[in-house]
């Protein structure tokens, strides 16, 4: 070994570079991604907001897992313990609950923005589909998490949902059994929901979010140019780091304020413990499933599940469907805007309608 090659002569950064041979230029390059001007407005930052809320979910979720016990005998008790006895338990649980609601709202708003500005079009079809899968994962996150509380409503919500799964064509019976871990909601169901909620779903969410961001980075953010907006060419883009990152941090801080205020004023509550023998008078899922629940009441179990699958399928493949429609019927972008508006309005009407029914 020559003296200049001896480890003792090297600086710490040299040593580290040898141990971890990563080209840091790449990161710098990634961080200096030019961001289009419109992203200076916060309402275009909803994708980042979802990511921020997801991180809050991961951190508070890990904290809750320290105390949560996923068995029918202790699930409710452990949630009550977290809420009433563990130091800051109520706050962590309330943050987890409120940020889950915010996350779902932000996902919907992000989807609206992307849809109506046509940001899903070529070459970004694949990212739309990934985003749509993430919407599904978010909803399943919400549902499984709610069921873990093991209070009366969440228990019966899980029962209804497993019946819905049963109505899926071909694989329904298998799917229902797989979710429940038996013919009825019980001990196995809770364990399965727990594993889904803290293991399977986070893994998929992490992979898909990474892919989603990677594709955004590869394609670049869709640039939106508003009519009559006069922006000098050199200001059309700004740097991701630190300019856009600062906006995101600001949004994060504001969200944290908002979440804390909500946690203080409306802390996560706890209903009656689950009782498989007593069916509550009002069984209701969480609000984001009201649309499906209303559809179920208007049609039948089987038909509502088929409709959900069909509508989900159309939305998932929409970028390709739209291209096909454009080729075949020469439609312009007023058609998807009109369709999207009607679809979302129906979603809202069904949601509100369901909330009025007892």
């Amino acid at each position, binding site marked *: 070994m020559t003296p200049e090659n001896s480890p003792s002569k090297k600086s710490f950064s040299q040593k580290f570079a040898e141990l971890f041979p990563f080209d840091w230029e790449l990161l710098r390059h990634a961080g200096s991604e030019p961001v289009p001007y419109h992203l200076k407005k916060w309402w275009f930052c909803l994708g980042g907001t979802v990511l921020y809320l997801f991180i809050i979910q991961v951190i508070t979720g890990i904290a809750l897992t320290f105390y949560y016990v996923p068995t029918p005998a202790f699930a409710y008790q452990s949630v009550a313990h977290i809420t009433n006895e563990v130091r800051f338990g109520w706050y962590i649980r309330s943050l987890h609950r409120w940020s889950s609601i915010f996350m779902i*709202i932000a996902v*919907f*708003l992000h989807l*609206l*923005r992307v849809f*109506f*500005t*046509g940001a899903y079009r070529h070459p970004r079809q694949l990212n739309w589909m990934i985003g749509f899968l993430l919407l599904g994962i978010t909803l399943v996150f919400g549902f499984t998490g709610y069921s873990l509380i093991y209070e009366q409503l969440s228990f019966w919500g899980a029962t209804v949902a497993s019946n819905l799964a049963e109505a899926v064509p071909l694989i329904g019976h298998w799917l229902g059994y797989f979710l429940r871990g038996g013919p009825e909601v019980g001990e196995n169901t809770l364990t399965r929901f727990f594993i889904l909620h803290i293991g399977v779903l986070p893994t998929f969410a992490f992979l898909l979010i990474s892919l989603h961001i990677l594709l955004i980075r590869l394609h670049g953010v869709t640039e*939106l*140019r*508003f*009519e*009559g907006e006069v922006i000098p060419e050199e200001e059309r883009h700004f740097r991701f780091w630190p300019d856009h990152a600062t906006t995101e941090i600001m949004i994060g801080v504001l969200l944290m304020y908002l979440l804390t205020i909500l946690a203080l004023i409306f802390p996560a509550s706890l209903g009656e413990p689950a*009782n*498989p*023998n*007593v069916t509550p*008078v*009002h069984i209701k899922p969480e*609000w984001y499933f*009201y649309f499906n629940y209303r559809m179920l009441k208007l049609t039948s179990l089987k038909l509502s599940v088929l409709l959900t699958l069909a509508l989900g399928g159309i939305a998932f493949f929409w970028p390709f469907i739209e291209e096909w429609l454009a080729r075949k019927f020469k439609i*312009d*972008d*007023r058609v998807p*805007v009109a369709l999207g*508006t009607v679809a*979302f*309005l129906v979603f*809202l009407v069904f*949601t*509100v309608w369901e*909330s*009025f029914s*007892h």
Partner: protein
Amino acid sequence: MTLTTKRYIVAGLSFLFLASLLLVAYQESKMKRVEKKEEAIVTSVNKGCVDCHSKDSPALVMEWKYSRHARVGIGCLECHGAKKEEIDAWLHEGEYISSLVTPRDCAKCHVKEYEQFSTSHHARAGEILASLDNVLAEKVAGTPTNKADAVNGCWQCHGSIIKFKRDKDGKILRTGQENKPVIDPTTWPNSGVGRLNPDGSKGSCHACHSRHSFQAKLSRSPENCGKCHMGPDHPQIEIYKESKHGIAFYANRDRMALDKSGDWVLGKDYSAAPTCATCHIGSYMTPKGEKVENSHDVGQRISWTLRPIISSRLNLVIYEDGFKEDYPETRKLPQIGDEVITTEKVVENEKLISKKVPRKVEKIITWQERRQNMKGVCLNCHNDTFVDNFYKQFDSLVELYNEKFAKPAKKFMDDLKADGVLNPKSPFEKKVQWVFWELWHHEGRRARHGASMMGPDYTHWHGMYEVSKHFYQEFLPAVIEAAAETSPALGRKYRNRVAKLLQQDEHLWLKGLTPEEARALQKMYKERYNE
């Protein structure tokens, strides 16, 4: 379409989204408020009562508010309201009311339950007031002026005859500015299931459905029945706790749907265990998937009576007016349509009297049919071989007790009376009477009840073991002793009778075991305990 237009659409939809969410949240919170509000509806007629009694007796009002009655607006006056002419009514804050709520008051709404209950064994529990049990409490344990043992003991389960304090002309004494009638404190408070009420009704619904919360889970819980069905003479609750049924219940109480509103059907709403109510009066599913309705007429599924000295299978005769009479199998059954002179116990001038009433037979339920009704419950969990064999085991125990101990003992007692050894007017004068009383009323019942509800220890150690020990060691010597006290000749007669009885096969064990049996016994103790 311009990007600005799209921006407005997105903004509009987002705004609508937010508005929808707020509306949904508002509806949710409203629903929760309504649900909470539903817990107690204080109607205008009850407002005055609730306002005052929320201060005077707050816990009572809280309990009522917790009840299902309160949620549908059934309040104080619906139950306590009375007509001016009613014997126990008085004018209180502008309304005629009564402290007593009788089954007839409950029948204003619960007609079916009232009719079922009124002809049941429970409703007639107060008729035991003329029994040996009462002699023990009122005379033996009491004094001519103090019946406290009966008041605090027997009557609290069997029910009292509600009486009022009266002046020398027989007029009810009244007290205070409101002229409240003075109830005889020895007769009320009383929640005995067979209480004899001034309005002629029998029983008290709150014996099982405790006021004022009237929770279903109370009457469905075994402990509720255990208030009375316990102790040395009928330890049903202790036997239940010992049985597999009781073990399953206490381990699975949370799966029993005890608080379910409306129907509570075995095989549909719950399956973990049967309670007292399940087997004796509860609703259950049949193999055809039909529901057998519950009934407030307890006893419809009982095929043996295990209470008397000698047990008997029981047929049931139902008359046209709904009156029911148990016919022991030894009593000849009438034909449907026959007119029969029945004995009915009623209260007249605050005294229980027997009345002869001619009635027409409408229906006869045989003991086999009653047993079949009970088997219907059993079959929800067990197969027919299991159930049939259980009844064979149970029957054989009752027959063993009847034949080996009860019948010979009763014969001795009857003969002692016929020979003038015992005074029929003095049922607890001599030792033999006490021993005999406990032999059938305590030990014999324990054995029979133990077998009926699958409690092994109560069948044997608290039951047949005690019966056997006291029969041989206490009763037979006491028979001879009582006879010898009367005259040497009677003493000899009964000594010979006892000796003759003990010559029978079932008593020959007294002469000793066979050499093989004795050796086997010694071997076992040697091997097991080295003794």
